[in-house]
């Protein structure tokens, strides 16, 4: 029995070790020394101030999106449409930046509100399709993602194209007043971090301390029992999606107003999908989300330096994180593997 308990304790490290081993193998396959490579990644993240700030700047929208997903996962929803919600937030913020003349503080406030509203409404679309139309949110999410990207490309190459002609990379740059103020020479906006922290606190309070959060938990676990206990699922699901959409939209707005200076083709850069991975890896545990998101940021940014130093493709960072999630999914749950059966509870 003792060996069983010890194994149970140690087991969570197995998937982590597995991911590291496979990544190292890949590195060796391509003629790089794993330790050097990981060192390069680390340097790429924390080597100097500007790099660290880049990690922070990347972390903010990822944190916003992940935090939002905590809400939808709590309600049992698979919000794959988060990519589209981020994009729509960026589009809305861009629209304000390009159409409105106002002092910076006002302009930025408007952009933030617009971004959150757009994200929320785009998410609401998925939600209503689900509650009224019985369309699974994975498929409506995929479709709305696609449409959002198409919209972006259209705006970039059409009405919002830069004056010197469409380059298909981005719209014309925004007026300086519209952009978030950045810390020194980086792309990091301290304001955005503040917003992200506020958002995180709001979500924690909402999920743990409000009745609404409890309702979401009930719906996510057992729709029928929740209904019989008095919870109306339709309304709560829509609200949960809108909450997540608002945060995602804010993330998109932050990206377009600080990381970039215009609306870009890959404005989201897969942040939404990465956020899904972050939350899956954290096993839906709220307090693990910020550090895991930070870890992802670190690895993804660090692998750019990896590419510079070793000439290896920067996707290695993504591979490491995805292997982690995969292995934890497959092998992380000790009980499900059936190696160690739980004692049956007598009813």
């Amino acid at each position, binding site marked *: 029995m003792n060996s069983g308990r010890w194994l149970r304790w140690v087991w969570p490290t197995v998937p982590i070790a597995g991911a590291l081993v496979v990544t190292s193998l890949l590195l060796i396959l*391509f003629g790089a020394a794993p330790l050097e490579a990981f060192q390069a990644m680390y340097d790429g993240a924390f080597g100097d101030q500007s790099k660290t700030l880049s990690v922070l700047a990347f972390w903010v929208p990822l944190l916003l999106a992940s935090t939002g997903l905590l809400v939808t996962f709590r309600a049992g929803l698979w919000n794959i449409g988060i990519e589209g919600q981020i994009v729509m937030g960026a589009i809305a913020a861009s629209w304000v930046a390009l159409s409105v003349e106002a002092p910076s503080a006002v302009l930025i406030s408007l952009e933030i509100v617009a971004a959150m509203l757009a994200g929320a409404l785009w998410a609401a679309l998925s939600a209503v399709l689900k509650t009224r139309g019985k369309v699974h949110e*994975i498929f409506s999410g995929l479709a709305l993602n696609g449409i959002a990207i198409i919209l972006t*490309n259209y705006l970039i190459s059409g009405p919002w194209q830069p004056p010197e002609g469409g380059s298909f990379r981005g719209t014309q740059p925004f007026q300086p007043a519209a952009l978030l103020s950045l810390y020194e020479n980086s792309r990091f906006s301290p304001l955005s971090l503040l917003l992200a922290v506020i958002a995180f606190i709001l979500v924690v309070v909402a999920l743990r301390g409000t009745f609404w959060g409890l309702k979401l938990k009930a719906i996510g676990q057992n729709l029928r029992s929740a209904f019989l206990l008095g919870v109306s699922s339709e309304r709560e699901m829509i609200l949960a999606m809108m909450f997540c959409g608002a945060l995602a939209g804010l993330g998109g707005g932050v990206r377009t107003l600080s990381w970039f200076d215009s609306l870009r083709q890959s404005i989201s850069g897969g942040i939404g999908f990465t956020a899904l991975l972050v939350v899956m890896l954290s096993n839906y545990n709220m307090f693990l989300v910020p550090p895991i998101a930070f870890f992802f940021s670190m690895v993804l940014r660090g692998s750019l330096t990896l590419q510079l130093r070793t000439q290896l493709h920067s996707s290695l960072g*993504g591979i490491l994180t*995805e292997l982690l999630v995969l292995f934890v999914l497959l092998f992380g*749950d000790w009980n499900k593997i059936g190696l160690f059966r739980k004692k049956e509870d007598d009813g």
Partner: protein
Amino acid sequence: MDSSTFILVLASIMLASTPLIIAVCGEILTERSGIVNLSLDGSMLMAAMTGFVVAFETDNVWFGFLAGAAIGALFAFIVAFGSIRLRQSQFAIGFVLAMLGQDLSAFLGQNYTRIPGPFVTHFPIPYLKDIPVIGPIFFSHNAVVYFAYILVIVTWFWLFRTQPGLRLRSAGDRPEAGFARGVGINRQRYLYTLIGGALVGIAGASYSLSIKIGWSEGITGGLGWIALAIVIFGGWSPVRGMFGALLFGAAKALATYMQRAFPEVSVVAFNALPWVLMILVLLLVGSDFTERLVTIAPKSLQRPLQRLLRISPPQALGTTFVED
């Protein structure tokens, strides 16, 4: 546009739609058994990359396809195993694999980008290619395209006219009934997830070996996600799926063409069309609109109409079945 250009356009649509048709047939088989393989996009990218690399190194296109099929089957197997044996969410595993496939293919293929390699040779079918209009559109392509035609017919026949097809469908529609008739439900699911995955792999490989020459990052352009949409849009039937794929290809081609004429509207409208259609079909599936439609149709048309409009998903899709 004159008629000969028009014919060329149609022919190119046919060619471009081939990977989608193959992938859709594969995923239909998988979903008919009850499993959703969300990893399609990553699967296809990995297969495209691996297919090209193997073909390049062995100087043989067909080994490339074999490799692609193997990769596709491997990805699918992980989804099936994780879902059936490890009781984890199909969606979660499929999704991670989709992401992983994207990054892994970029990394592993980095030394092989944008170099020319073996290519499926153009092989117009004698006699058939000379039929006016039809000939150039359908019969002046390569072996992969012809494979796609045959695949659609074989998949349809297998699903709806054979005993194994019945067993497959029972696993996805009502596993308890299948079980009572002696069908090994999980066995069916493993089998067809593997076969479907292999087909998806072939579709991916065909991208780097017959559509676009060579490999580069993200070459399939989100095709895997679109394939998932078309399976639904085609009502889980190979023939309708093929039309869905062709429609998508046509929409894309039309978008490029019309862009010159009506730049504003066309890009958004035509590119977004498949997605909008998918949502509409899903709405239709969830409502009882089609049933009501059948009841108000004239009596004689009711039966064929019902068969045509049967778009509901396999009832047990996405669920697990525990064999006693």
